[in-house]
């Protein structure tokens, strides 16, 4: 039995939207919160691309999960089929052995038996 994957706990990230009109307002807000006015910035298109990249990764995770589920189902079914076949084979072997033992007595032509 394989262990489940570790649960993910996403860290909170804060987006701040700045344009030329609200830059002073944002600066004042950060100062009041005791934060420095320094950013790692994205353009509108860059933000969209980041979102799409995340979406692609999420789709990849989902696809991998589906593949794992499919393999699990397949191997469960295959193992069951093999077990059933082995049980059936053993049964047929026992029946054949019993039949052979019965027939190995030969044809009794002695009318006085």
């Amino acid at each position, binding site marked *: 039995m394989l262990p*489940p*994957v*570790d*649960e*993910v*706990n*996403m860290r*909170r*990230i*804060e*987006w*701040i*939207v*700045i*344009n030329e*009109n*609200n830059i002073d307002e944002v600066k004042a807000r950060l100062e009041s919160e005791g934060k420095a006015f320094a950013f790692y910035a994205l*353009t*509108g*298109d860059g*933000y*969209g691309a980041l*979102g*799409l990249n*995340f*979406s*692609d990764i*999420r*789709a990849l*995770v*989902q*696809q991998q*999960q*589906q*593949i794992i589920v*499919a*393999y699990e*189902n*397949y191997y469960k*079914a*295959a193992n069951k*089929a*093999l077990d*059933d*076949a082995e049980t*059936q*084979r053993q049964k*047929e*072997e026992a029946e*054949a052995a019993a*039949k*052979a033992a019965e*027939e*190995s007595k*030969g*044809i009794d*032509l002695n009318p006085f038996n």
Partner: protein
Amino acid sequence: MKLSGMLLIVIMTMGGIGYWYYTDTQRTIAVLTENNAKLELAVATNEETIKTMAADFAAANEELKKVNTEFANIRRQNQELANKLADIDMTAAAIANPAAIERAVNRGSVNAGRCFELLSGSELTEDEKNAENARSFNKECPWLYDTYKSRGMLNDPTNNTNNQQTN
């Protein structure tokens, strides 16, 4: 007398040949019966193997079909954000209403992150359990609502209403 003696010898010889023929035939019959049993067993084993392989192939095909359907669903779900972004000019929206866009992208990021947590097996929150529809469950991965619902992991909204009315 002489004739009866010869007749006795002939009868005894014939009897001996008959006995030899009988025992030899019996031995041959036993060998053939044994061979036949082995062949029957081999045929049965082969038939069982063919049956198992056919079942195996059918199971593999069934899984392949399911995976292809799920992949198509996942691709369609993945396309939703692209469609949404195609309708919105993020730059224009940030200029027009930065406060609203800031709230929206922060909310969207939390929801998107939550999708990963759920995919990794995170337990549902009470809000998620009580979600009345897919959108209120999570706007970034609403399709998970149906998955959890089919597993019976969500509270039935009808029961909640009934419970509230009772309380």
